């Protein structure tokens, strides 16, 4: 099994959720995050003071999938999250040893 993590722009969340539904993934976990990368940051002037802000808000999505679906899922995620503008975010995948559904105790694929 794989854990796919995606860091995206907040307002793309709806599209991503829709795309995942369509793809047949029916569960995901979302956390709020913020990050920076290429865009590095910008300075602001506020009430006569000047300073740098370098973190921008992001949404972090985690999805557990079976190995064979991982690559397609990544493509789906990337397509749904893309705006073509800098700061679109990253998607990565890590191997999962085992997953359990808390309610039933089912393990592996059945847990999804």
């Amino acid at each position: 099994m794989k854990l796919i993590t995606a860091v995206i722009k907040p307002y793309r969340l709806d599209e991503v959720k829709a795309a995942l539904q369509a793809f047949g993934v029916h569960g995901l976990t979302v956390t709020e995050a913020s990050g920076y990368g290429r865009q590095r940051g910008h300075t602001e002037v506020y009430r006569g003071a000047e300073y740098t802000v370098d973190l921008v808000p992001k949404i972090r999505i985690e999805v557990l999938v079976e190995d064979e679906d991982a690559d397609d899922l990544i493509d789906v995620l990337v397509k749904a999250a893309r705006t073509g503008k800098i700061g679109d975010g990253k998607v990565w995948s890590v191997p999962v040893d085992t997953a359990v559904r808390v309610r039933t105790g089912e393990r592996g694929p059945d847990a999804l």
Partner: protein
Amino acid sequence: MPDGFSAGDTAFVLISAALVMVMTPGLAFFYGGMVRAKSTLNMLAMSFLSLGIVSVLWVLYGYSLSFGPDSFAGLIGNLDFLGMRGIGLNELTGSIPVTAFAVFQLMFAIITPALISGAIADRAKFAAWGLFIALWVTIVYFPVAHWVFFFDNGNGGWLGDRNGVIDFAGGTAVHINAGVAGLALCLVLGKRVGFKKDPMRPHSLPLVMLGSGLLWFGWFGFNAGSALAANGVAAMAVVNTQVATGAALVGWLIYEKLKHGAFTTLGAASGAVAGLVAITPACGSVSPLGAVAIGLIAGAVCAAAVSLKYRWGFDDSLDVVGVHAVGGAIGSLLIGLFATGGVGQTAKGLFYGGGLGQLGKQAMGVAVVAAYSFVLSWLLAKAVDKLVGFRVAEEVEVAGIDQAEHAESAYDFSAVGAGLARALPGLGGVASAPVAGSAEKPVEKPAEKTEVDA
């Protein structure tokens, strides 16, 4: 002070003016709590801007146009008081200084345009809004105030003084006027992105409750102060204001519970405001029992009215129409039924043996103000839109108008300190990257690009 002066009445009207003034910040919180966090500041600022602009215009020419000697057929005042000059320090109107009356009325001129702002939440350019306020009070409010509030024994405003339309404290001039203008504006600006799809729930109901509390408090000045004296009529206005508002709060909650299954706090706050609006024109004409009846009716009817926008598809975002236009009309018309003839006016309503006469006059007043306000407000909004563009870009609206128009976000509950301020939304910083137009200087090219990264 000259004969006929009353320190008691003056104290009452001056404090009432302060009470009416605090209604505008109260309104700002009432509205500001109802929008999403990302556009809270814009909502607050729209009301505060009215406090600024209208105060200045009032001195320059507003007072004169509204309450200067009538220039023609009760339609508009003349220019005798430009710059508020020529008003003696101790000159009286009734038993109070003219200046006391002038500042009391100024507060009405301030809150009326502020009321409109709720109809176009989240999407109006701030500068365009400022321009609209200036035009609207000049072309719509000042004349209508003259029609309704200027009394000069028969030579005053054509609705109130000449045709006996009863509006004790502004059901027509303030609430119908603002409510209908709100309808015109939301039609001109169009719907918010996500209207009917996203929940768009209030981001802070305690802020909404604070607003309704301050409105309720200030409204005693608004209604009772309109007696322009601390007398029996003022006392009755306080009683009626309180009991009608309480009844409307109950009326709204009951309707809601039956219709949707829960008593919401937003409903309690909205019901109170609906009651305050409805009793405004009537508080000087009805008995406490009549006030309770008006309140219950207004609470329930307005609770029903606020869902029309979804049925008919106009995005009156914060229910200015459903509460102020509808509530103002209810109160103005019910005078025709509940007026006892024994409070501030002698005219009797249908239930007190007065026949349908007064009801007719009230209907006329409602219709005239509504029609005038709708047409002129629509034209002014269109004009402003042509001139400077009234609505922000969609991406700005999605990211949150506060960043683009005010270069701020309403909250930052960061534990780490402002270093992470806007950047960690999880920390409550109602984040969204700065947007073109905000007070920002990119460090370097790529930074530029990030300006829409949110």
